[in-house]
């Protein structure tokens, strides 16, 4: 059994705004084993980025507030640490890959220095060794002519190449945990595939654990071991990739699976979307936050928040539909069909 590297317990993050207190993350629990890849999926605004930034304590305070919870990294709680103590963790133990490579590099600093800076910050090595290591990293992430590229500025790189640089920076100090917040969203499709390929390679060649944030379930099937589905600041379903793809239990997960774009759709089959919009996080609704958009909602959904029901050893879902007394709702046929098509395609992509 692999060692648990990260354990998040009842994490709550609020933001103070003029309109009121935004409950962006409302009690998130999950854990991550060494070498494991966890995907966090969910619609825009569901709190994926806030959760991942919170893990590195990158939430600006104010307006952010760590309202409750623990972030146990190798058993040590990060929440009470000072900024100074955190700076020894950031980049060193936990590293992050940001969404938009066009803006996440400093435009007026040479790429090489942006990499060596991390190495020199966290490792006791000479400048020359740091440079050697940086060039190794550039090679590793697939950048041709690394010696020449080392001395160039970000604007001399294409988007895909910049994201490779960002990945090299993230890997620079051999982090134990890598958080990738939608690392491919800002790139065009062919480049996305290349970056994913690179991520998979990293995953294979190192014992680094990865948290992979995305709203593209197609990517999930490809890279993740486990999946956490987020909705309105909470994890609503949690399980292995197989659990989520073959046996999804939460109606929101059904909605996400059903709304995956599928190129070989029948022409008469419309792209399904989840009706309605996410709830107001300043005044979260009573009961199940998803109730208003849930076609299978029951009376209790508007009254009481559902607990996490355990489906199997690895699989949990937060919906009253799993209560022993609830009516048994079969997986909607359209969703089942989508899943089939999707898994077939995923298998092809893996070959």
């Amino acid at each position, binding site marked *: 059994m692999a060692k648990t590297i990260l354990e998040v317990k009842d994490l709550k993050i609020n933001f103070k705004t003029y309109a009121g207190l935004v409950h962006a993350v409302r009690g998130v629990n999950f854990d991550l084993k060494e070498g494991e890849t966890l995907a966090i999926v969910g619609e825009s605004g569901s709190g994926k980025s806030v959760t991942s930034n919170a893990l590195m304590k990158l939430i600006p305070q104010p307006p952010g507030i760590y309202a409750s919870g623990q972030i146990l990294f190798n058993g040590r709680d990060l929440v009470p640490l000072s900024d100074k103590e955190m700076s020894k963790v950031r980049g060193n133990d936990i590293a992050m890959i*940001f969404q938009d490579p066009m803006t*996440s590099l*400093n435009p007026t600093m040479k790429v090489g220095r942006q990499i060596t800076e991390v190495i020199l910050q966290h490792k006791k090595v000479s400048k020359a060794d740091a440079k050697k290591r940086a060039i190794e990293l550039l090679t590793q992430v697939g950048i041709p002519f690394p010696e020449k590229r080392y001395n160039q500025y970000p604007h001399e790189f294409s988007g895909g190449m910049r994201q490779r640089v960002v990945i090299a920076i993230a890997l620079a100090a051999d982090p134990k945990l890598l958080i990738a917040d939608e690392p491919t969203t800002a790139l065009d499709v062919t480049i996305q595939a290349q970056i994913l390929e690179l991520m998979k390679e990293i995953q294979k060649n190192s014992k680094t654990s990865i948290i992979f944030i995305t709203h593209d379930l197609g990517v999930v099937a490809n890279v993740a071991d486990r999946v956490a589905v987020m909705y309105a600041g909470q994890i609503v379903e949690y399980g292995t990739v197989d659990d989520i793809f073959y046996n999804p239990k939460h109606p929101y997960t059904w909605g996400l699976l059903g709304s995956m774009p599928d190129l070989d759709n029948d022409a008469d089959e419309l792209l399904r979307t989840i009706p309605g919009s996410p709830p107001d996080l300043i005044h979260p609704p009573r009961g199940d936050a998803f109730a208003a958009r849930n076609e299978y909602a029951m009376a209790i959904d508007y009254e009481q928040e559902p607990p996490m029901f355990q489906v199997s050893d690895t699989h949990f879902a937060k919906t009253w539909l799993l209560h022993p007394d609830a009516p048994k709702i079969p997986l909607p046929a359209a969703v089942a069909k989508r899943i089939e098509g999707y898994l077939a395609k995923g298998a092809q992509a893996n070959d």
Partner: protein
Amino acid sequence: MINYILKRLMYILIALFVIVTVTFFLMRLAPGSPFASERNFPPQIEEKLNETYGLNNPWYIQYKDYLIDTASFNFGESMKYKARSTNDMISESFPVSLTLGIEAMLLAIGFGVLAGVIAALYHNKFPDYLATTIAVLGISVPSFILAGLMQYFFAYKLGLFPVSGWKGFNYSILPALAIAFSHAGFIAKLTRSSMLEQNHSEYVKMARAKGLGKWTIVFRHTLRNALLPVITYLGPLTAGVVTGSFIIENIFAIPGLGKHFVQSITNRDYTVIMGTTVFYSIILLFAILIVDILYTFIDPRIKLKGAKK
């Protein structure tokens, strides 16, 4: 780079030509003559003077003479002060103005950047409010009012500085401050907003995610990017300091070029007007060129190409 600079030099020549021409015709249009203030001039003498200085020639001859004189930097003698050539006047008074101008620019940039950085680092806290208030005051109070107030309080009441004149470093502090204050305010606001903008950018977040300390991030990452707009302002700043000196040198009775320039206009001292105008134009045009070149050293994204205007 060389191509670019040659091209820019050509533009400067064209600009100078336009400036010389416009000044020439504006001088003709303005009523009065260099000798108008000498009341009891016998008409014969005035006639003689006009002839000596070529003022009786048709305008196109005068224009041609001016162009030739200007091109050879021979601006002739002052029409007002006997036996003083324009070039002498410039070379005597320019060092004074240059000292004052450089002092004012250093003050404006130094205080401006410092106040802006502090305001941004303590965003929405007391130091921010204090710096912003002073900056807004500086921008809105005209330099001549500030000059008068400072003369009254610091020189007359408290006796900390001399009221006017130019006999040493002590004499330069108040006028330099008067010129610099509003520019410092402007630069402070510019630096502050630019720093705040950079602080919200992804690369600063990334720098934090790398585990760099707060101050390392400011000095290594944010400041350089935040100062780019300030560099752009150096051109207008030079122009502002020059025009500011026209007023301030008069108020503080400083024997600088600005004072001569203003006086030459009141006196219709054509040769001096022409000389100082051309001189100022050259300085300003070159200041802008230097700023553009400086920019490329600080921002690697900007490459000077011959094609760029």
